[in-house]
């Protein structure tokens, strides 16, 4: 549930000198977070808004779970897709509860079901319902508004979430907390998330894969690890700041560099760490303990092994990337 397929998708706005989105073909798999990354004006928002038909492509097709979205009524389609935007777009005349209830009401849910859903979602985004249910958006901080925005987008239980720079206008500390929140929620909910950002750190933190765009075209679509180690060209290399190794290690998750457990793995005396920890955490753990390898845990169960060599491989920019660019 929740595969998005772009098939040769283009959009040229009336009067536009060049297409805002030019011949994009790619597939976002069910349950993954894909961050669309690129400089301002490169077509990220345009690409995103074609998925819920706020814009119609002038060329190509988009499929959700194999169904061409042109065949789905626009309002029906949008009710099945969560949508979060930068300025939250909360309805100022509605309470937090009423904001969250919008899509369930559109979907025709019963009253008790909607009430239960509101409380469930407010708990989920860590806004205690008792305190926040009856507040108006003007009575919330920017970060709280965005939490409500996320709860509202999740309300109809969509398989897909579209998020357009949702944390763009939020201070750095709150933004980091909200990013953690997204990762935590995603661990529970396993949505397909298409997330627009122009912030590299955010992209590296959140993404399973990053779609790098430039002038309306996809430059590279790969995992953070591969983007850093094998950037397709100078543009990607510079965009990601791939020349700063320490920073890079701090941004990559352990899971991106570890190897699978060997079949004969027996729980040795390796130090352990979480798959969500950064490679910098791993490096300091190796240096501190002197152990040859670390065991990576996911929810307490071993899922992989990490050695100094794995970390070194991640830190060295891939073939053709490093040498001639210094």
């Amino acid at each position, binding site marked *: 549930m929740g595969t998005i397929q772009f098939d040769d998708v283009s959009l040229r706005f009336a009067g536009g000198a060049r297409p805002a989105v030019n011949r994009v073909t790619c597939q976002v798999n069910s349950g993954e977070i894909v961050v669309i990354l690129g400089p301002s004006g490169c077509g990220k928002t345009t690409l995103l808004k074609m998925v819920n038909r*706020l814009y119609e492509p002038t060329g190509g097709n988009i499929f959700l779970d194999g169904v061409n979205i042109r065949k789905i009524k626009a309002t029906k389609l949008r009710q099945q897709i969560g949508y979060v935007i930068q300025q939250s*777009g*909360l309805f100022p005349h509605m309470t937090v509860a009423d904001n969250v209830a919008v*899509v369930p009401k*559109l979907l025709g849910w019963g009253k008790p079901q909607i009430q239960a859903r509101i409380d469930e979602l407010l708990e989920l985004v860590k806004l205690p319902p008792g305190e926040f249910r009856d507040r108006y*958006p003007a009575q919330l901080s920017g970060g709280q508004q965005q939490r409500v925005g996320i709860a509202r987008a999740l309300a109809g239980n969509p398989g897909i979430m579209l998020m357009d720079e949702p944390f763009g206008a939020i201070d750095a500390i709150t933004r980091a907390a909200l990013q953690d929140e997204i990762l935590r929620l995603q661990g529970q909910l396993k949505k397909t998330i298409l997330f627009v950002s122009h912030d590299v750190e955010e992209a590296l933190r959140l993404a399973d894969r990053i779609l790098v765009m430039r002038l309306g075209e996809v430059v590279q679509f790969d995992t953070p690890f591969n983007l850093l180690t094998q950037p397709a060209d100078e543009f990607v290399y510079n965009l990601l700041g791939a020349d700063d190794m320490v920073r890079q290690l701090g941004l990559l998750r352990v899971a991106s560099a570890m190897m699978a457990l060997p079949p004969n793995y027996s729980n040795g005396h390796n130090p352990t760490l979480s798959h969500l920890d950064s490679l910098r955490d791993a490096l300091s753990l190796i240096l501190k303990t002197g152990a040859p390898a670390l065991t990576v845990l996911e929810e307490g169960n071993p899922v992989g092994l990490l050695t100094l060599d794995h970390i070194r491989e991640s830190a060295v920019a891939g073939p053709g990337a490093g040498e001639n660019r210094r």
Partner: protein
Amino acid sequence: MSYLLSQPTEVLTLLLQHLRMTGISLGVAIALAVPLALLATRLRWLAVPLMGGLGILYTIPSLALIIFLVPLFGLNATSVIVAMVLYTQVILVRNLTVGLAGINPAVLEAARGMGMSVSQRWWRVQVPLVLPVFLAGVRIAAIVAIAIATIGAKFNAGGLGKLLFDGIQTNRYDKIVAGAIAVALLALVINGLLLALEHYAQPQRRLKKTL
């Protein structure tokens, strides 16, 4: 003041005439202003000439405007009511267009992105958000209408203005004072009622103040 108390039936009759003129003119004016404002919002090029035309109407003295209308509608309340409608248009249309234009575009985009239809967006988002602004316009229009209705007495339309003009004609000072007080009281009461309605229409502001 004593005249108001000593002649309750006469004053009441005049008050009802006054209210009737004000009510009818406001009703017609709103029914006209809403589509005009929507049209001006939809067709951008229309906004400037429309507001300009209505603005010019507003600068014509009310007495002169009613005199223009008498040949068309007769020496009666209709001419006065038409003048009131024309007068209040500029207030209502402007408040409504400004109110609609003032809605945060992010809110409208969210409404669209969540799958609301055009009519759902109108009734659930746009109407509640412009209502306070629109009601503020209605309140000002009502005061203007009450003032013009006072002049209506000169044109055989009755209303509280009759006390004033009769008083002037017969040199009855107490009647003049009674007329002036009655009109002022009416304006104050209507203003207060509409202000309360405005307040009621924006729960988010009401709560914000209590924080």
